């Protein structure tokens, strides 16, 4: 079955990004297709590569990036939500005249249309948030 997932909250502060990660892993292990995960609201903050969690804690961003690398899950970060919160890739940083970028590997920045498209194309949509 095709499952789409939405993550609406940032890492560590709310459990949403953890719950979604475990759900996606379980769905993939069961043979379902999770073609895309859409990060919205504070969920875009999952995608910064600058986090340095304590050594005895899980690394939420790296967990997600690994899902992209190992299972080809498309991790899409909403551009409008990301700009409000300071999440940028190198292209956007350049275009906006910012002197740094912070998007992690495996994530890509795109528009809200990707969320609607995911709703249209999947059999089930599961939203994790606060």
């Amino acid at each position, binding site marked *: *079955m095709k*499952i789409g997932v939405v993550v*609406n909250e940032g890492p560590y502060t709310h*459990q*949403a990004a953890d*719950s979604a990660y*475990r*759900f996606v*892993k*379980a*769905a993939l*292990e*069961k043979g*379902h297709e999770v073609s895309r995960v859409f990060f919205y609201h504070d969920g875009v903050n999952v995608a910064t590569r600058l986090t340095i969690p304590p050594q005895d804690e899980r690394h939420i961003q790296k967990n997600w990036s690994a899902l992209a690398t190992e299972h080809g899950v498309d991790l899409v970060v909403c551009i409008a939500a990301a700009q409000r919160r300071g999440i940028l890739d190198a292209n956007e940083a350049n275009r906006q005249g910012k002197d740094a970028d912070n998007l992690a590997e495996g994530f890509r920045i795109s528009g809200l249309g990707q969320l609607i498209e995911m709703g249209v194309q999947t059999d*089930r*949509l*599961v*939203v*994790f*948030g*606060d």
Partner: protein
Amino acid sequence: MSTLHMVNKSPFETGTLSSCLKHCKAGDAVLLIEDGVYGAIDGSSISDQVKATVGDVALYVLDGDVSARGIDAGKMVSGTKSVGYDGFVDLVAEHDRTMSWL
């Protein structure tokens, strides 16, 4: 045609579980995750409302979230079913739609 309702908030902090239960239809299921699992504790200020709904509506809790919060299985409303993430995935697949009560 049935709905899987997901509730991730404590019913003692917010009215989310209460609102969810009022919008369930017979054959629907409610899955409690994260702080939502507190909604399955029996003998609480919300448990009468939960018990009045369970039966027509199936009540599930995510076991990892229950264990993390130190809730004993014996303290839960009778009829509550415990699932892991694999069971969570099955519930999503078995119901026609998933609705998150955020």
